């Protein structure tokens, strides 16, 4: 499997006209000295980061969305079947411990090179955090609220969707925040699954090209901004979905 991986990594390394790019433009000198950040180069080459960034967004967005859907399904399934909780926690925990590059390579024969492999792997990584947070959130719902809900004639399903899940929103969103930030980071490795994303710039543009620092710094910077962007999104989401959490209690 590893041999296979090197064979597909090899052409990747050799392709492209990167060196010509490096010697062009107004920042030639900086680039030639390979300073930490060559802003001029970054500015001139902003174009080349656009599609990796978009690819990265898609990878993260889809993985977290799928992860959330699956984890929610698992949580709903195990909610009234408590014995499933350790099983699900254990299984998602095992997945979480597999080194990411290894997981990409394990998946390659099944899903082939490309976005599918990356998204499957990234999705599996989100399960542990999201699932555990949903379970925690559901566990924190006040007994009295559940008792009142049942006592007023809610079915178990109505109780789950109208009382328990809404009350678990803060914990669920906390889980999504962590899962998303870590996915933003791990998705930079998607390049090893043959998918795009910012990893392309970090590995093929940076590391594999005589360690060109500026490409690495710019791509990492974009990843950080992306994480911050998602975080802000979640804060907004929480304000919208859990307004009762913001009120001043007396």
């Amino acid at each position, binding site marked *: 499997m590893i041999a296979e991986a090197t064979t597909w990594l090899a052409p990747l390394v050799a392709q492209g006209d990167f060196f010509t790019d490096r010697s062009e433009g107004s920042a030639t000198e900086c680039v030639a000295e390979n300073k930490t950040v060559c802003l001029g180069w970054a500015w001139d080459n902003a174009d080349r980061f656009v599609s990796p960034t978009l690819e990265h967004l898609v990878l993260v967005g889809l993985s977290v969305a799928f992860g959330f859907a699956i984890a929610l399904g698992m949580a709903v399934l195990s909610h009234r079947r408590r014995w499933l909780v350790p099983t699900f926690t254990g299984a998602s925990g095992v997945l979480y411990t597999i080194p990411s590059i290894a997981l990409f390579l394990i998946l390659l024969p099944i899903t082939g090179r490309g976005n599918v492999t990356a998204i499957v792997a990234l999705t599996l990584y989100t399960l542990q955090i999201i699932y555990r947070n949903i379970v925690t959130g559901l566990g924190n719902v006040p007994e009295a*609220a559940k008792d009142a809900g049942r006592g007023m004639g809610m079915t178990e399903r109505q109780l789950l969707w109208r009382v328990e899940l809404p009350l678990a*929103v803060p914990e669920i969103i906390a889980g999504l925040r962590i899962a998303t930030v870590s996915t933003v980071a791990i998705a930079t490795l998607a390049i090893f699954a043959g998918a795009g994303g910012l990893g392309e710039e970090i590995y093929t543009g940076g590391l594999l090209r005589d360690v060109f620092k500026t490409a690495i710094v710019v791509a990492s910077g974009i990843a950080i901004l992306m994480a911050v962007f998602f975080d802000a999104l979640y804060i907004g989401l929480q304000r919208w979905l859990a307004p009762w959490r913001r009120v001043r209690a007396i």
Partner: protein
Amino acid sequence: MNTRNGDAEALSVRFEDVSKHYPGADAPAVDGLSLEIPEGEICVLVGPSGSGKTTAMRMVNRMIEITSGDIYVGDRSVRDRSPAELRRHIGYVIQQTGLFPHRTIDDNIATVPRLLGWDKARTQARVEELIGLIGLDPELRSRFPSQLSGGQQQRVGVARALAADPGVMLMDEPFGAVDPINRERLQNEFLRLQADVRKTICFVTHDIDEAIKMGDRVAVLREGGRLAQFATPAGLLMAPADEFVEDFVGADRALKRLSLLRVSDISLWEAPLAYVGQASAEVRAKLEGAEVPHPLLVDSERRPLGWLSERDLEREIVPDRPDSPAEPRLERDDVMRDALSDLLQAETQYAAVVDHEGRIAGVLSIEIISEFLGSGEALVEEHSAVERPLE
């Protein structure tokens, strides 16, 4: 009562030899309980912990399943109805209020109407009606429960239970988590509300004073979930069935009986009246054989001004400002226990009792009260006193 919500008719609740055995437990939690709560009455289940009072209550809406026996709401067995359907027609109030923290007050109150599929306009109208009924500031309607005080939350809990106008309500220590002053207020408010809505209520408490105050009937349960006595509060205080009930009711049951009565419920003494400007000799004549040995000075409207002393009567004409004022002054609606307390506090034997216009209605003495407690006359029917809200 309004019938537009379908449920308004209060329904009786009948326990027939109901037992609950939890799996793995040696003894039953509730053991052969039989009792009937007539329509529109409050029945309080009271007892020490482990007496199965909450279990008994929760079997009515099948929050706990009955092991043997049956419970009828109206003439329908609860076993024949699906738990969800049954519960939507039974109001449910619990100690911790159980308000949904993520829903506004309006939305909390609208819970059951929405479960029943009422349309928006009808639900909205009902919520508004209930907000008025519990006297909640309408500004609080869009707030979340955590923004309300404990007392307000408890009122909202009651409103939520009343929302679909159920015939029966279950209340599990509804005022247990509120401080004593607010508890008293909530109890009184609730009795006023109940006088209006006339629900059949199964009320659980461990507090015998609350049971006596709130109940039309009180069921005292003992450990092991057996019924020790089922009686009116007065009956319970008058004739405890056994030592357990006597202990549970407490050594001060004589005083508790007084809290069931109002001054108007017992026959008062008549005071010899002296009018301003009357001759002392005339007043002295009235003292002969009077129940109260002191003349009470009243104005032309028969409003008490004060008690005349021997020295006052030495004058030819009675003075218009007597030495001792007519304190304490009681009203006919005062609760007897408070009246006694006023008498003791004023360190006096007699108190003038006045009607709503402030005119003299009679005299209450410590002697009347002690005689009354000694004889226990006609106490059982005096129960009417608690049906009117105390305040």
